[in-house]
């Protein structure tokens, strides 16, 4: 898709708002279900190896992904298995730099794809969300109307 919209009940709103700017860019990049590494050349993405590091004692490869649209993301891959342990996205929000760190775990094999069933997120180092996923299904038919901007 090309347009991003959001409903934010926490701001007392029950109607959809169009989203623009860096947040929209981030949402769009999240729509790349295959992840940044799959077919990265075709997508126009460049990947740099920052180095081998540890996260809480776990050895990881630290990669920096720069997408075609200029947005970047850092990936930390488990050195033993190659799976994503952590991702870091940085974006400007209200003129300030916001760094969102996601720790991924509880991977399960769903139709041959490893999916993290637990995601912990922090914003500038402060925990903001802990997501536990009960069930993942791929290629379930979805009405196109679901993606229409609801006014």
């Amino acid at each position, binding site marked *: 898709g090309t347009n991003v919209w959001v409903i934010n009940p926490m701001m007392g709103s029950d109607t959809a708002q169009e989203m623009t700017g860096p947040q929209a860019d981030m949402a769009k990049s999240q729509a790349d279900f*295959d992840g940044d*590494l*799959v*077919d*990265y050349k075709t997508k126009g993405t460049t990947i740099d190896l920052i180095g081998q590091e*540890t*996260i*809480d*004692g*776990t050895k990881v490869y630290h990669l920096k992904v720069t997408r075609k649209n200029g947005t970047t993301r850092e990936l930390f891959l*488990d050195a*033993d*298995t*190659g*799976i994503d*342990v952590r991702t870091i996205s940085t974006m400007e929000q209200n003129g*300030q*730099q916001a760094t969102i760190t996601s*720790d991924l*775990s*509880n*991977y*399960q*094999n769903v139709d*041959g*794809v*490893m999916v993290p*069933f*637990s995601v*912990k997120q922090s914003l500038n180092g402060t925990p903001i969300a*802990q997501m*536990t996923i009960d069930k993942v299904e791929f290629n379930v038919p979805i009405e196109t109307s679901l993606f229409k901007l609801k006014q």
Partner: protein
Amino acid sequence: MKRALVVAALCVPAGLAAQAPPPVLDSAAIGDVRARALGPAVTSGRIAAIDGVADNPRVLYVGSAGGGVWKSSNGGATFTPIFDEYPMSIGAVTVDQNKPETVWVGTGEAWTRNSVSIGKGVYKSTDAGRNWTAMGLTDTEHIAAIAVRPRRSDTVYTCAVGHLWNSNDERGVFKTTDGGKTWKKVLFVNADTGCADIEIDPQEPDVMYAAMWQVRRLPYFFTSGGPGSGLYKSTDGGEHWKKMTTGLPDGDLGRIAIAIAPSRPGTLYALVESRDTRLYRSDDAGESWKPTGEGKAPLGIRVRPFYFANIVVDPTDHTRLYNPSLFLSLSTNGGRSFEAVSLGGGVHGDLHALWINPKDPYTLVLGTDGGVYVSRDRGTSWTHAATLPVAQLYHVAYDMQRPYRVYAGLQDNGSWSAPSRAIAGTSVRNGDWTNIGVGDGFNAFPDPRDPSIVYSEYQGAQVRRYHLQTGEIKDIRPRAGAGEPPLRFNWNAAFTPSALDPSALYLGGQYVFRSRDRGDSWQRLSPDLTTNDPEKQRQRESGGLTKDNSTAENHCTIVTIAPSPLDSQVIWAGTDDGNVQITRDGGKTWTNVVANVGGVPTHTWVSGIEPGRHQKGTAFVTFDGHRTGDMKTYLYATDDFGRTWRPLTGAGLEGYLHVVRQDLVSPSLLFAGSEGGLFVSLDAGAHWARLTGGLPAVPVYDMTIHPRDHDLILATHGRGVQIVDDLTPLRHMTAEMLAKNAAILPSRPAVQSIPATLQDFPGDAEFAGANPPEGAVITYYLKQRHLFGKLTLDVLDAGGKVVKSLPAGTRQGINRVYWNMRLDAPKSAAAPGLGARALVGPMVAEGRYTVRLTSDDDVVTGTVDLMADPLAPHPAADRQLRQTLVMQLYGMQNDLAYLGDATASLRDEANARGAALKDKAAQGDLRRALDTLAGDADKLNDSLVDRSGGLLEADPKLRERAIDLYGAVMSYGGRPTVSQQDFGAVLAGELKAARGRFAELSGPTLQRVNDLLTKAGETPIALPSAPARPGSDLRP
């Protein structure tokens, strides 16, 4: 990378990832056993360097003396630490104004007071402080300045003081032309002389000036100045240098500060320490100099050049000079005269850094011994940055209140006390700190018998008894009697209560003193325990060119007194000149046992003694030789009162040591505080690991273990008080356990306190010391990070029923998961109003719960204990009554959620069916029945749920009134009021009536509709099924 590759990589057998590391404690295994910063930031701490971004003056970088580098992106309203992986002592911070994303940091403060820390060279960031790279010069130890050549970013100069305590060659001026990859030493005088300042001409950058400074500290003496000092100039970008002498004083010089007038670079000022320290001015680019005033130089110019030498010229006016010193003074006539700048009365003295916004010279940012201040009016008024917790503590103590309070002495910021956690709100704030002593604070502790009395001391054993209720302070320092030799007290004199006798206080001079009457009288408990070497007792002559008799070099004194907690007759004393003394008969006889230690150079400072907590013959001793340039780690233990000693410096322990503690419960659990952080050993010193969670490699000067709450309380010299909450898990960590894949570890019982509210809105510009996380702590160990498969953490009640499932932590090492001791929040019927009081579930009953950690191939269990708040006075029967009412109201909400949602569903479905009826049927029985169902459902729904907009439009119905009562009863831990109990009954009656109406609606009324629908060939309307929820007894 192709997807096939990704999947293949994921199919690596688990065995490969599980290659067993040897079962030795490391930083990762300590895991979530973290330190939390309590502050204080109300006083902040010493700031050594400040720089800003000229083109974006909202961005400031602040280098602290012992707490790392902090960045503000909002002109100083808030600060974030950006250098916590690196040495914490900062000498220089320089933004490359050509490319402001590039920031240089020189580690190792250059304001070389007796307590100064050391650095490990130069660091560089090219992304505005997010990532850092070490750029060498690791043996410089102290860096005074870094200068980037204007318009040529890769050419940078480092001005290194070098070693303070001994000679070394890596000092002077270093130049790089490749952005720091390689350095060339371009100005060097001798191994005792380093660089104290450097300035580059902003218009002709081949022209530059450097101040060379000969300086030496010894444990007992300080010398600023000597033949090595001098002012130098280069005209070829630092390749060659010429010593400038014309107009400067003859004889030895000391520390020199240089300032170029940015608006007229041919004009320079130099503050030159000599026998007649004063300010000089040159108007010919440094070739010749003239004193700027007549008579004796102003105090601000000549006081303590080693600590204050600093001149800053206004960016737009070459005659306007600021002199940050003991106080801030200003000259508006090119240095001919100085006047004090108004500091508004509340600005800390002892200034070390001043940054003036080049685009707006009315904005000044000042670095002091008490943190950062910002002025928007050229110094008339100031705002304190109250967000910088970089206090430098010497010692810390606790009391037995609930929550316990901590007591700490701070470098140049007096002594302070604060609760270890705030009862109201979620953080210990600046206003929670109480000032309990003045000067440089050292030992401060409460009277064990009277919490309204606090003892404190400032430099040289100025011991004081502070009466909290009246504010009266009594000077209780002992003085020498007639014919007695003068008393000698260290800068940081030993001062401690007895562990066994609540009436006894001990104070260390050259003798051990004891008082049993709160300091009103003192008895000598020992002879002179030091070497009493007259050569090391020359404090009055100390300072070099500028005398500096501050007690900082007092020597041949007792610096640690350690009374045994097991035997009142056993007392240890350690001296700054290397004696380890013990008495086993309450002070009648003393034995110096240091000769038995072996392996430590003689006269090495005895920085700490820990009396054995489990055997009275045991003691642990740390030695600190850094004041003679010996940076080694010395830690020894004895089990036979000092006859024999063994080293405990096993692998992993680093830095010169200040303190060691033995755990109160587990004898083999040791903690060591070094200049480079906190270290933990599980095996009595054979192996050590640095605790890295929440704690940078900051100097740990002192620590103590709270005997009731089992917290480790740290006095850091740069990051204030730090608390490691609950040592219980570490006490149960063993090598055997480290080898397991997973294990639950015990924690202390969790207190079921009712959270207190705090209604205030302080904004962001205030530091908040974190409370310990609320709730019960579930602690477990994972040998490696959990990545694949399920990992679930359940809490089960005594009956084996799961009362709560929690997201499990997955990190390697110790994980700590916080359970708020509550059930899930009640289900609430859909409504516009949020019903905030219903967003939390009820607290579970006190008692023991089982915790169970389940992975795909492993199950481990343990327990967690919940206890009633010992501070709360509620009898068990009252707590039970409350719990019963809360659970009724909890169930009521679940019921109401179903009733509300079900009535809305029936109404909507009935309306939808009605709307879909064809014309012919639209007027028939079915239509009427549907209308009746929809109307009745809507009416019932309206009586249950507030369908207005909520907030100010609220029209509370049964749901809202139940939520309100639920919140009200939950917010107090004891007996609900009669009114609350009665109202609970009223609500229960209304709910019963509503259920009756719903039974009618969902029974006969719905049945009538469904019969007609079936007759018409339509599917009947289904009644939503009630979800099973705790407390709900409603079934359709």
